[in-house]
């Protein structure tokens, strides 16, 4: 093989390798992006399900606050039923689900504001405002609520609508967001 042939072969090989690596890189990035979105959605769903199951078993009369649309609340205090004893419903200690001080976490608290308070973070990547919403005094995302935060509760009779938007930096450092919502009926 002459030197020319070798150089030519190496050049071709380099081009092919470059193309292959570009494809691999793109695929890798896409895969990472999709994985990040899937993971974020999974995280949001799990947090939402936890909130929903907690609210379902609560006493309607114990919900604090009691916001009606277009008013929302970023926290909800409630008590769930532990069962019936001697003909009376036994209620658990009060619990509260809401945002942390920096509004980036969903915090579940038991006996909030007391010495026996227990805290667990259910989600760490909450958006400051719900996806599509900006703090301008109008309902930008058309859901009937004005300037709602990343976590919002709206109570209407026995139904509680829970909305959660989460956001984290993606693999390429651009933010990725996911919004989940559900409406549950308070059973008690």
């Amino acid at each position: 093989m002459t030197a020319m042939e070798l150089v030519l072969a190496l050049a071709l090989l380099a081009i092919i390798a470059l193309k292959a690596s570009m494809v691999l890189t793109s695929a890798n990035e896409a895969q990472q992006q999709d994985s990040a979105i899937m993971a974020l959605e999974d995280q949001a769903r799990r947090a939402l399900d936890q909130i929903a199951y907690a609210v379902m078993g609560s006493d309607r009369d114990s919900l604090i606050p009691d916001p009606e649309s277009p008013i929302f609340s970023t926290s909800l205090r409630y008590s769930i039923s532990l069962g019936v004893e001697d003909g009376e419903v036994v209620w658990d200690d009060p619990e509260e689900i809401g945002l942390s001080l920096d509004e980036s976490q969903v915090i579940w608290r038991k006996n909030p504001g007391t010495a026996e308070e227990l805290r667990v973070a259910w989600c760490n990547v909450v958006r400051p405002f719900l996806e599509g919403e900006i703090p301008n005094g109008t309902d930008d995302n058309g859901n009937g609520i004005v300037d709602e935060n990343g976590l919002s509760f709206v109570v209407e009779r026995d139904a509680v609508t829970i909305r959660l938007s989460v956001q984290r930096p993606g693999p390429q450092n651009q933010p990725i967001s996911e919004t989940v919502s559900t409406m549950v009926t308070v059973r008690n």
Partner: protein
Amino acid sequence: MTSNSTRCHRPNHLHGKRAGGALVLALVSVVTVAGLTAAFLQLSTAVSRRQAHMRDKMQAFYMAEAGLAEAWAAVQIKKSGNVGTEEDPALYGDGLFWVEATDMGGRLIQLESTGMVGSATAVLSLVVEEGLETVADLGVYSPTSLDLPPGTFLDGYDSRLGYKDGGALRLTSDEDLEKLLEEFLQQMEGSELGGLSGPLGASAPRGDRGGGTPSPPPPGDDPLELPPAPEPVVVEDEFAGRIASGGGITVNGTVELPTVIQGDLVPSPQDTVSMNGTVSVTGSTDPAADDVELPAIEVPVLNTLAACMHSGSAPLLMLPTEAHLPSLEVAQGSEVIVQGPATLVIDSLTLAAGARLYLDTTEGEVTIYVTTAASFAENAQVLNSTEDPANLSLNISAQPAEPIGLPAGAPIHGVIYAPDAELTVPPGFELFGSLVAQQVTFAAPPRLHFDENLAEVARERALPSLFSWRIVELENALLGPGANDPFVRLGVNRAALLPPARVHEDNPLDITYEDNGGLIQNYAGPESAFDWSQVRKPKALSRGGEKVIGEEDLKAVTAPTIDPLAKAVDDPAKNSSDVRDLLLAATPISKDALLASIHREPEMNSSHLKDVLEANAPLNDQIMLEALRNSTMSSSDLKSVLLTMSPGLSAQVLMAAAAYLAPSDLLSVQGAQ
């Protein structure tokens, strides 16, 4: 020169060697890609698995809720609430469930439902409170014989629609009435008769439920001016009163004081109704199928306040409360107002002459329990602000030696229940609602109006209600055999499982029913051995000794039977003439058959329909209005039918006729009134 010289010679040191890095590069690339793929698969599999678990958990949750719904429905019809077992669960969709019922006492039943779908298991617990058996739907009832004096009046009504003197009435919709009025006015303005004065003018008020009586018109000069419109009545209602007894019922009436019973008289299964003198009974006098057992009054235990004795002109206001009073005495001419919602347990209740007990039920019901003694002056008043009997109940659990005289100073709208006391009904007594007592003595003819809405309320209150609900468990199975298959986890054969309706716990059934042959049959035994397909109509049904339905329920909820003649009218094989002949041969025919002939598709010939309507005169307003709206009936045929029933046509029919009759025909009809 030989050919060898043209050959390309390899250097000797390269002979036998295969040099080159392409394979290595290819291998490296493949390994890299494989590694990336494996990592991606692992990540996505983990996420997919987690999402599948979340989905299974949600589905298991709803599976458990389905189990609770199945058990709840069972408890409503007096079944135990047990649905399947862990060894023999119910098959439902892709999963299974079973429900365990536990009697907690105090009318509470715990239902614990386990639902399994995929890898998840959900256990939900629901505590239901059994419904209250009420007596409000009994009407006027006494376990002992009843003797109705001459002049007694009984009818029925629906408090949701209002009561009108002379019988319960139901009105058309306001839109129908307004349309008729507008059409009539337009027709009259364009006709020779000119405009109208009086209540049929533009300023006439619309009829509405319970009121809206137009004022009578000033005398007019036009001899054809229509008479003043009475209450906007369209349809004769079929509400009926009810008087029942655990013994016989004797009804007395005289020419001066006839007794009118617009409803049913129901003696005990072993007794009968005796009627003496001028007595009119529109309903049934058949004996009851079963004896009635009056439930005991469960007096709640409440905080005790001081005894209350009120006198003076200013009324005493009691705010909404639940309290026990040793006594409540309202002096002569004084008034006590009790705001609902309120529950009062009063040991001794006394209303002096002219005293007023005003129960403000606007915001909620008022329930009063009298446990020791009750004394009401004859002209004392017990008033219900909403006049809805369902909002006021007076429960007398006292067992006095002497009869208790009821107050008659004003009509009572409520439910009076005294299962152990004898009540005396004084002169002038009028009741809207229900009266049940151990013994009822009528010192004078009463006016009794049974509220059929109470039957509806009683049925609702008899249903169980939710007391408590909670999630007991909501988990995914760990790895292992059957981690994703609930049937394997439980060790059951899916093919052998039955649907939920067939795995309810067997209950002892006691049923009286009409079979497909029209015979009355009885069955008592396990429900699993009973063939429901032979039941045409149940008469009475109980499970485990608890009544599910009785005769009074059947009367209200049994679907109306369709007149076979009405079905025959709709036979498309028959022409108009055949239908006319059929109906004329069966005259008089039912309302259903008349309506069927008016609404028949294809429509009947106008003259044929006219013949049928004339043969069945007099017709009620509903039939007449439907006939007027029939598009094929000619004006002359309508006129002929209306003249057959003249004079005596209602203003409603006359107004409607104006919209459908030619002016000359309308003049003829109006002239005949």
